[in-house]
């Protein structure tokens, strides 16, 4: 049995840290952006769910923050290969926002201020898997990290956790979003390393 020095195994990690394949541990919180950072003030902020039947459900900022919120501590995994462990958020579960929404949709297209979109199955937004997050690490969510509010869906690659979220279109058929229509995987499970189409 050959002895392998830890010095030859790349980035040193605690033995109890489990990362998805191909990921490395980031200590900072990298800022990725595909365009200018939208500056959306909370008095203009609105969140809308549109159903496949054309029904519309709206929340103002005040209405959002008056809903029951949860504190979430979770690991996040970016498709550009950094992972960050134990990130702390506060937000409203999508279960709360979808509670009174009547829909037969199987898919969701998440829409952001600044026109970014991302798609995912509706079943990945419910059952305690996704939130509209508006605080990070005890502070208001900054615009660079998607403030005033972003989607948080941490079991998928972080491009699915749309910054500057403004709404969700519920759909009967899947519709690829910004990165999903340009080569990235439609689902994006980091534990199955679903980075690109065909993975």
């Amino acid at each position, binding site marked *: 049995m050959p002895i392998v020095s830890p010095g030859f195994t790349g980035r040193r990690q605690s033995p109890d840290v489990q990362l998805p394949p191909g990921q490395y541990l980031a200590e900072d919180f990298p800022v*990725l*952006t*595909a*365009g*200018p950072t939208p500056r959306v003030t909370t008095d203009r902020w609105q969140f809308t769910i549109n159903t496949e039947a054309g029904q519309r459900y709206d929340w103002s900022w005040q209405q959002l923050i008056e809903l029951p919120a949860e504190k979430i501590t979770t690991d996040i995994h970016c498709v550009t290969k950094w992972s960050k462990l134990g990130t702390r958020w506060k937000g409203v579960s999508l279960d709360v926002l979808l509670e009174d929404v009547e829909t037969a949709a199987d898919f969701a297209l998440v829409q952001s201020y600044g026109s970014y979109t991302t798609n995912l199955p509706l079943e990945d937004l419910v059952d305690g898997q996704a939130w509209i997050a508006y605080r990070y690490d005890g502070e208001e969510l900054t615009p660079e990290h998607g403030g005033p509010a972003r989607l948080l869906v941490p079991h998928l690659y972080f491009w699915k956790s749309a910054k500057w979220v403004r709404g969700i279109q519920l759909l009967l058929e899947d519709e690829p979003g910004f*990165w999903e229509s*340009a*080569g990235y995987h439609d689902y994006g499970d980091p534990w199955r390393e679903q*980075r690109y189409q065909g993975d």
Partner: protein
Amino acid sequence: MSHVDGNALAGDLREIFAVDLTAATGQCSGCGYKGSVASLRVYQNAPGVVARCPHCEEVVLRLVRGRDRAWLDLRGTVSLEIPLP
């Protein structure tokens, strides 16, 4: 996060095309603005490279580099006028 100019696209595009596309003139499908690829606003700190129109900031080009493939999305570009030698 600030952008850089379209000359930053030269390396990635040279991997795909036989000519230097940064000298090409593109027309934005959003606002109709015509300008050189080198004049685009390029955001590189992202899962792919995103080039935006300097006039209306709409996306005119997206390039994703996979392990053994690249995806080039030009739906934001009406056309590219490419000078040939």
